[in-house]
């Protein structure tokens, strides 16, 4: 069977790109692309991934080398999509179908993908923010206020998203809104501890997982990715601190 190497490169790169967009780890992306190339008989494939770039290269039987570079935009985490692509990759490696069919199957995954509707997301933010306000030591009124602040963060992110706001600005605004909500709710006598309320709600924004994953990358030897993610996590945290700091510094003046 002679295969179209351009198409194979397309398939492998597209899969890597999509995995990366679901928030998959670097090693998973690199391994998946490598497995796909090998499944179609290419032993000379190379792949290099860092959080915002993916490079896949292969040499065909005629000795002709081709490379594809994809830049990875800012993305969230979508675990159900990650699982689907992971399973897709495993199936392809076990019994490689013709390339057209593989591409078609990959399209089908994104077509039938289910995302929770926005109100459910807001509810999740409410419960999440509330639960972490309690977790950090607030009483039940703080829990409710933390939940409300969480909803405010969710709304703020949603409103600023379509406006094309830079993610730093967006995080800063969300942090400011959370702090403002906490202060207002405590001022109204609803909550008691603005600190617990704010930090509980901010758990939605805070880059704890990103930071821990960065440490994992560094320990696993993916130094560039790790350093990249550490800087990203620190930037996000700075944005939140700037947002809340701005509001809290205004508070005594009012």
């Amino acid at each position, binding site marked *: 069977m002679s295969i179209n190497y351009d198409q194979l490169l397309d398939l492998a790169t597209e899969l890597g790109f999509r995995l990366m967009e679901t928030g*998959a780890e670097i090693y*998973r992306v690199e391994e998946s692309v490598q497995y796909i190339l090998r499944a179609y008989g290419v032993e000379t494939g190379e792949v290099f991934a860092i959080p915002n770039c993916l490079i896949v290269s292969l040499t065909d039987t005629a000795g002709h080398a081709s490379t594809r570079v994809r830049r990875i935009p800012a993305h969230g985490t979508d675990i159900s999509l*990650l*699982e689907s692509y992971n399973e897709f990759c495993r199936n392809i490696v076990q019994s490689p179908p013709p390339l057209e069919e593989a591409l078609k199957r990959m399209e089908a995954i994104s077509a039938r993908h289910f995302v929770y509707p926005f109100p459910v997301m807001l509810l999740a933010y409410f419960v999440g923010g509330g639960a972490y306000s309690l977790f*950090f030591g607030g009483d039940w009124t703080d829990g409710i206020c933390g939940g409300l602040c969480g909803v405010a963060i969710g709304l703020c992110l949603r409103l600023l998203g379509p406006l094309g706001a830079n993610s730093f600005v967006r995080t800063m605004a969300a942090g400011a809104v959370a702090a403002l909500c906490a202060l207002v709710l405590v001022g109204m006598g609803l909550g008691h501890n603005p600190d617990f309320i704010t*930090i509980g709600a901010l*758990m939605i924004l805070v880059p704890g997982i990103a*930071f821990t994953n960065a440490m994992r990358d560094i320990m696993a030897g993916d130094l560039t990715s790790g350093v990249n993610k550490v800087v990203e996590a620190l930037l996000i*945290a*700075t944005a939140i601190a700037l947002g809340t700091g701005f509001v809290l510094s205004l508070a005594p003046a009012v």
Partner: protein
Amino acid sequence: MELFTFSYFLPCLYAFVGCVAFAVSFNIHGREIPISALGGAVGWLVYLLSAPWFPGEVVRYFLASLALTAYCEGMARVRKCPATSYLLISIFPLVPGAGIYYTMEYAVHGETALFLQQGMETLSLAGALALGILLVTSIMRMWTLFCRRTRRTSAQRR
């Protein structure tokens, strides 16, 4: 022991509820939600239980991360899913998100000493978590490879 009261363990419940919510925001579906959220409660339970024997925060975080990674790897094998999907949610209560935030808050306020102290603490906690995860996942990987290899050699002998 009078340390282990009901209210002492209440945060485990909050961690569970919080994890359920964040599982939804990470787009996890169906039965995986409670399974992954339970991991968060397990991690925090180990953290709380180890308090009398290990006074150091870092050691307790390390132990908790060992326990919850083992739980996630086990569940991943039972449910035939990548362990990552459970791990990302389960680690949530332990992850030093608040620590990073406070670190940068001190930086923004220009309190250098507190910034350094909090920063070091956050770094060591994240490091302990990452080390715990890495240890368990590599041991599991080696174990699967070992099993596969022994199976292959015994098949060849036959």
